[in-house]
């Protein structure tokens, strides 16, 4: 386990994922938590973990942050799909380069509600990541292309305004993507009206409308680089509403983290290059300046491509430096004498050719340039030198490459270290002014309250008595709903049938739509008319079961259900509505639902079960933004 522990060891032995996790777990058991984490970090820095290993590492890192109360930077990820695995990978990506960043997700497809919750939370978010998913964009229906694009942009603009004005934090907007060309096929999908076309148009509109100083993560490009067949995984979408494959999730998280890192720290500033077998093929001390591999050979072409790429980076403002174990004169000769060389001596801001250890030489370069080591990227073909620099200078990003020079440019691009926002000094000052001004003045947002937002959704609710068609679905929901479930009673079909056989009892399903589409069956209510549980005089309408889909939380569906229950109780001449909260490991979400709705707790049992009552004669209907479409309940 040498490299896993020892900082001084310089061997380049690889460890597989299982060994890494076992070792980390062993350390954690010995209460060596920091060492356990650095084991994971070391493995990630050296690319030993698979995509699923990265996700798992992220899960463990987040758990550590939480249990040890670690002070972290915080990123809030809000998606129109589930983002749990993405958050884990994002946390891991940051941790791999030494940043303690905790990525947390909001409830699935609840962007606006979660933003408002974030505004009133104690957590200060350092960035908000918005992840669209194409369900609404590509939904069936007769909206035309322009309408669809407008709907999406309007939606995100509300979110952007909120992030900029209320949360005052960084905004990272991910684009839209398609998993496949859809029913139109490859040819028509790309033409007007096709899915691919629609996705590309909406991405253009996002870019054009995105507020200044926010970062656009072009997922269409990213999935294309990896290949959509590898980037997406249909099974994971159907199983968990997370469309990305394991590698897709890891790759997307690297891009989101690169966006964050660029916004916080800017791009890396210096690219440090080894010479022999990196900038050129072969060893100049043996072959002389004209014998190096830089001409018209396959290897020479690859090295020229690297030089061309480095030259382009230099043109856009990245400093280049040489760090080579060579005699200084030998090292300089090819730049002066070999006509195939693209890079020239004057392209380098620092030139270190000596026999000193590379960590020492790189520190000298940092002093010369007066730049921190955390703005350095180091490229060297020799794994021993890479390991040496990784261990001695943990702040330096070391590019992991194989032996073939044809991979080098790709490896540099893949690291995303030189992603930048194209910001001039004037831009930056302007942004500061903009920020300050935004904080001073009373901000006008396209909507300023939750009420306006909910109003704009134009929601409808259809409450029906449970009928034959819904029965199987109701039983299924009773069996599997964990989070928004007040009592978690897993009734059998027989029990429910018996309950509903008596007309005094009530069983209701609720369907919700909004202007973007149909959410389907989102809630089930079962209530029975009985005596008051504390033997008070009067009839009680007892809520046996109240379960709901988490997707519609915070949209006043709760209030709609409350009104439905209250009115049903009145119809039955009941004096009380009785609510019960039975705590489970998974339903803390609704712990205070009845409190929020104005019920009075009347009993708390030993197992934590709380019984509530609501006096029907005193209670009033609550405000809801759902228009009733069917009143058969």
């Amino acid at each position, binding site marked *: 386990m040498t490299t896993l522990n020892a900082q001084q060891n310089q061997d380049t032995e690889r460890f597989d994922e299982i060994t890494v*996790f076992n070792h980390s*777990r062993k350390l954690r*058991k010995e209460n060596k938590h920091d060492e356990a984490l650095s084991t994971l970090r070391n493995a990630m820095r050296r690319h030993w973990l698979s995509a*699923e290993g990265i996700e*798992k590492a992220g*899960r*463990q890192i987040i*758990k550590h942050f939480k249990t040890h109360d670690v002070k972290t930077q915080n990123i809030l990820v809000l998606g129109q799909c*589930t983002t*749990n695995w993405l958050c884990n990978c994002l946390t891991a990506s940051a941790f791999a380069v030494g940043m303690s960043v905790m990525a947390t997700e909001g409830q699935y497809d609840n962007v606006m509600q979660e933003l408002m919750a974030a505004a009133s939370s104690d957590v200060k978010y350092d960035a908000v990541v918005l992840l669209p998913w194409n369900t609404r964009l590509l939904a069936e229906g007769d909206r035309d292309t322009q309408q669809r694009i407008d709907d999406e942009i309007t939606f995100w603009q509300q979110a952007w305004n909120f992030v900029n004005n209320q949360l005052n934090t960084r905004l990272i907007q991910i684009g839209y993507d398609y998993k496949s060309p859809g029913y139109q096929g490859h040819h028509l999908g790309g033409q007007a009206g096709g899915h691919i076309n629609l996705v590309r148009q909406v991405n253009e509109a996002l870019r054009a409308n995105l507020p200044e100083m926010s970062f656009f993560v072009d997922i269409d490009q990213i999935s294309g680089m990896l290949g959509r067949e590898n980037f997406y995984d249909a*099974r*994971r979408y*159907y*199983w*968990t509403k997370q469309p990305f494959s394991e590698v897709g999730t890891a790759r997307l998280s690297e891009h989101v983290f690169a966006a964050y890192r660029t916004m916080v720290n800017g791009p890396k500033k210096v690219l440090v290059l080894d010479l022999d077998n990196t900038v050129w093929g072969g060893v100049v001390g043996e072959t002389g300046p004209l014998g190096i591999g830089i001409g018209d050979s396959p290897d020479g072409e690859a090295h020229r491509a690297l030089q061309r790429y480095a030259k382009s980076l230099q043109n856009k403002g990245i400093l280049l430096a040489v760090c080579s174990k060579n005699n200084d004169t030998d090292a300089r000769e090819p730049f002066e004498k070999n006509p195939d060389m693209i890079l020239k001596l004057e392209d380098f801001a620092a030139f270190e050719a000596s026999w000193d250890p590379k960590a020492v030489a790189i520190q000298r370069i940092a002093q010369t340039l007066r730049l921190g080591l955390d703005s350095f990227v180091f490229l060297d073909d020799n794994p021993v030198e890479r390991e040496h620099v990784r261990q001695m200078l943990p702040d330096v990003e070391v590019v992991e490459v194989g032996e073939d020079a044809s991979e080098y440019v790709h490896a540099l691009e893949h690291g995303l270290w030189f992603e930048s926002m194209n910001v001039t000094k004037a831009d930056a000052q302007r942004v500061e002014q903009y920020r300050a001004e935004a904080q001073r003045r009373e901000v006008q947002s396209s909507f300023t309250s939750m009420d306006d937002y909910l109003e704009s959704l134009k929601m409808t609710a259809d409450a029906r008595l449970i009928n034959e068609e819904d029965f199987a679905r109701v039983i299924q929901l009773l069996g*599997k709903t*964990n989070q928004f479930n007040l009592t978690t009673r897993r009734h059998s079909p027989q029990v429910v049938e018996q309950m509903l056989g008596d007309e005094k009892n009530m069983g209701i399903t609720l369907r919700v739509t909004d202007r973007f589409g149909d959410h389907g069956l989102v809630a089930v209510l079962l209530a029975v008319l009985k005596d008051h549980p504390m033997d008070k005089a009067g009839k009680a309408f007892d809520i046996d079961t109240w379960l709901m889909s988490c997707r519609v939380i915070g949209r006043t569906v709760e209030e709609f259900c409350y009104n439905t229950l209250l009115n049903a109780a009145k119809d039955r001449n009941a004096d009380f509505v009785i609510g019960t909260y039975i705590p*489970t*490991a*998974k339903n803390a979400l609704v712990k205070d639902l009845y409190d929020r709705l104005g019920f009075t707790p009347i009993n708390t049992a030993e197992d934590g079960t709380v019984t509530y009552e609501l006096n029907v004669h005193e209670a009033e209907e609550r405000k809801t933004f759902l228009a009733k479409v069917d009143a058969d309940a």
Partner: protein
Amino acid sequence: MSDTLSKVTEVFCDVFDDDEIELEAETTAEDVDAWDSLMHVTLMLNLEKAFGIRFASSEVAGLKNIGELVALIDAKTTVAS
């Protein structure tokens, strides 16, 4: 304990990062604290790798307890070998 059950237990310990987990045929998701619907999928994906099998979408949600899971894995590995 069957070989399958002990291997399943290993996967559970690994996924939940907890050596203390003990599984029996009657164990259900309610019995293991962190076993929510998302971790269930993570478990299934890890079990697939550990046993070299593939679950169908129709199989992942209907399992009542560990006993049924083990039986399902046994059925798949028997066919495979």
